[in-house]
């Protein structure tokens, strides 16, 4: 079964997410940068765990972008916050699933879901959601276990990210020169 396979996913022509394709999480420049870190006791993480938690916008699941269908310079851009610069943390679905299983989440479903750039450029959509890592469960006060699993998952993911996985901030894309789709896989 592919990482994105799910029942009822027939409303899109976008292929399901492959366990070994590269996904990225957008990280706001300055986001998670420590105000203080005692480096005499440990090395600071490359990406703070809090940046892998679902934001209020991630109601349907954690937002990730597939580099298979969007070039990195465009993946680091949001048209609704065009002044905000982003770094990209590269992630593998198979590794995210492994982290999930280690904290008691049986499986992760990666569902293609169009964002603003996908609506502009059409299918295949590059944006997808990790359904199990969603804000609704994270905020569910009546069942704390779902939130605790998401917290543990984010912690596991952040410890697996290395320096090589995190890009420098990207400049805004230039539509005249920067291809939206990657040149080749």
């Amino acid at each position, binding site marked *: 079964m592919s990482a994105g396979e799910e029942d009822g996913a027939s409303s899109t022509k976008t292929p399901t997410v492959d366990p070994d394709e590269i996904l990225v999480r957008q990280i*706001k*420049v*300055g*986001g*998670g*940068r*420590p*105000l*203080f*870190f*005692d480096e005499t*006791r*440990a090395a*600071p993480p490359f990406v*703070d765990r*809090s*940046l892998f*938690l679902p*934001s*209020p916008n991630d109601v349907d699941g954690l937002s990730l972008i597939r580099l298979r269908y969007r070039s990195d310079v465009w993946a680091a851009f949001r048209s609704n916050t065009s002044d*905000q610069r982003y770094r990209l943390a590269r992630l593998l679905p198979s590794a995210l699933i492994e982290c999930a299983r*280690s*904290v*008691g989440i049986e499986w992760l479903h990666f569902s293609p879901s169009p964002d603003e750039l996908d609506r502009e450029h059409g299918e295949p959509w590059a944006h997808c959601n990790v359904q199990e890592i969603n804000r609704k469960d994270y905020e569910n*006060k009546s069942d*704390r276990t779902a*939130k*605790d*699993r998401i*917290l*543990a998952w984010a*912690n*596991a993911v952040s410890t697996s990210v290395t320096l090589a996985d995190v890009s420098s901030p990207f400049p805004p894309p230039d539509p005249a020169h920067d291809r939206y789709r990657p040149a080749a896989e």
Partner: protein
Amino acid sequence: MTTDSSIATLEPGPARGIEAAPDAIATSSRADHAAVWDQCIDALLGIWNTSGSIPEPAPSNATIDAAIRILREMRRIDPTNTPICIVPAPDGGIIVEWRNDLNGTESIQTVAFLNDGTIEIVTYRDGFAESRTLEEGFPT
């Protein structure tokens, strides 16, 4: 008896065939911990009224104030248990992190002071997390 000041301050130096006296270690340790607490408070004061390079939503002044007051109280109660990290919370707030060794297992505890006035405590241990929210929120 030596009066070498580098021993008293535990600065690195050549072996002198003498161990630092326990009192000297304790004094140095207290000074080190005090310096760390000062750095933590200074880091929070540094973002008062200015988010600097923190992306929006930045911590509010009320959040920073609550974090400083609680850190000062924790410093008074347990001066050797210094935070290891302070980061801005992505949704607006401050997260303070402690790490401790419990029977050979590292335990991470984070206290998040959020802009909505709530305080959330998370303990990470053995790959799992346990969270709780303080209903009373920020102390007044």
